């Protein structure tokens, strides 16, 4: 592995960590709302969140490129803010990845919230816990396995994402050239040994992540 490979690895881990943190921050209220609401919008919002599961990443990437470009709404907004355009930048990659990995974080957390049911929240209310208090002291701890799954899946999925990064990254070393793109480059350039190194690393990484997921995620405790 040369320094370009190491840089790409570092960049990938940085991207995945930031994206995972943001996803937990954004995904938790969305998951909570989806798990609890009886609004007519629930179906629509749930479907939008799940879109990246079915859309080819290149489609999503293309639309994000359009949206973030100088003629797109997001692009105009960022230019108005004075921070320039997002394509070909690391923040742009972060935002795109957040979109793309959103369902992988929202859905496990939403399922965990739904599995809690109404009762523990009612119990907490009868014990003088405010809704905010209940959320932190009851809902979140009980949904811990969902948070763990969501975080691990979000991280792993960001590490493995390729199509979107390709579409809006521009393959710039140290900025947007992540491992998956580099592997593709190596394969395209017929540099198979390097490709093997990185691909093997990805396989091992993914395995370790999933192993951790299955090992440390205990079966849900029986309702007390």
């Amino acid at each position, binding site marked *: 592995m040369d320094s370009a490979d190491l840089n790409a690895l570092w960049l990938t881990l940085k991207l995945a960590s930031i994206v995972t943190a943001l996803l937990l921050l954004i995904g938790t209220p969305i998951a909570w709302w989806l798990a609890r609401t009886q609004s007519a919008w629930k179906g629509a919002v749930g479907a939008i969140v799940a879109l990246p599961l079915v859309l080819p990443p290149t489609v999503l990437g*293309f639309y994000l*490129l*359009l949206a*973030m*470009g*100088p*003629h*797109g709404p997001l*692009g105009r907004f960022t230019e108005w803010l004075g921070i*320039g*355009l997002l*394509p*070909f930048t690391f923040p742009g990659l972060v935002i795109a990845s957040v979109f793309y990995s959103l369902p992988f974080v929202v859905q496990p957390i939403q399922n965990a919230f739904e599995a809690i049911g109404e009762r523990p929240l009612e119990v907490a209310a009868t014990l003088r816990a405010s809704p905010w208090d209940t959320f932190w002291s009851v809902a979140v701890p009980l949904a811990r396995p969902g948070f763990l799954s969501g975080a691990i899946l979000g991280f792993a999925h960001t590490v493995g994402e390729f199509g979107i990064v*390709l*579409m*809006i990254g*521009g*393959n*710039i070393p140290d900025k947007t050239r992540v491992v998956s*793109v580099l592997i*593709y*480059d190596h*394969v*395209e*350039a*017929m540099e198979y040994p390097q490709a093997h190194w990185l691909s093997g690393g990805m396989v091992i990484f993914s395995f370790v992540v999933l192993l951790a997921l299955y090992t440390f995620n205990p079966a849900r405790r029986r309702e007390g």
Partner: protein
Amino acid sequence: MKRLGYLLLALFALPSADAGEVQVAVAANFTGPMQVLATLFERDSGHQLKLSYGATGKFYAQIKNGAPFEVLLAADDQTPARLLAEGSGVAGSNFIYAIGKLVLWSSDPQRVDGSGEILKKDGFRHVAIANPKTAPYGRAAIETMSKMGVAERLAPRLVQGENIAQTHQFIATGAAELGFVAYSQVIKNGRIGAGSGWLIPPHFYSPIRQEALLLARGKNNAAASELLAYLKSAKAQAVIESFGYALP
């Protein structure tokens, strides 16, 4: 309209009794002309073409691992040479079926002047090129910038598409203000269609020779040889030129 007519014809034409079938791997940049050529060829010969479009490097890996392609229309001349050297191609069957032309292009009609002076000025943030490591048009773009003496200055502004299709998207969406793409991507009625462009003179970069090759699997398929011969016909060459390629 003419193309549509051909397509309709192909749809209704009945395959003849001795119809053969050819599996063809086609470089992605040649997608447009190949669709027209295939319709013509199938009508004239009665053979069926099974076409796959994609990156030449990917085809190489697939062919080496047993993909059932019989003919390769590559985006370069190195991949066919390598396949020949490794015994995956039929010796002597390779020839240049098209020569790619490079264009500096922007979706903004005012931006690119007729001699590429824009590259020496400021006023843009990104220049899009295809990945020079894997795409011949990317390599040609780098050569052009070196020749103009702007390679070093522009290096921090370069963004790479994995192939020229993606590079074209970067520019078409405005995410990159300008960039180097294939003339075949922006040609319309014999000239640059939307936006503004500079058709780069051939002496700025080494030729983008796109070679065809009869693969070992297609050695005994008469239809495959017929297709290769057809690509050299005047009729086919007229189509290829109309899509913005040069001929040897």
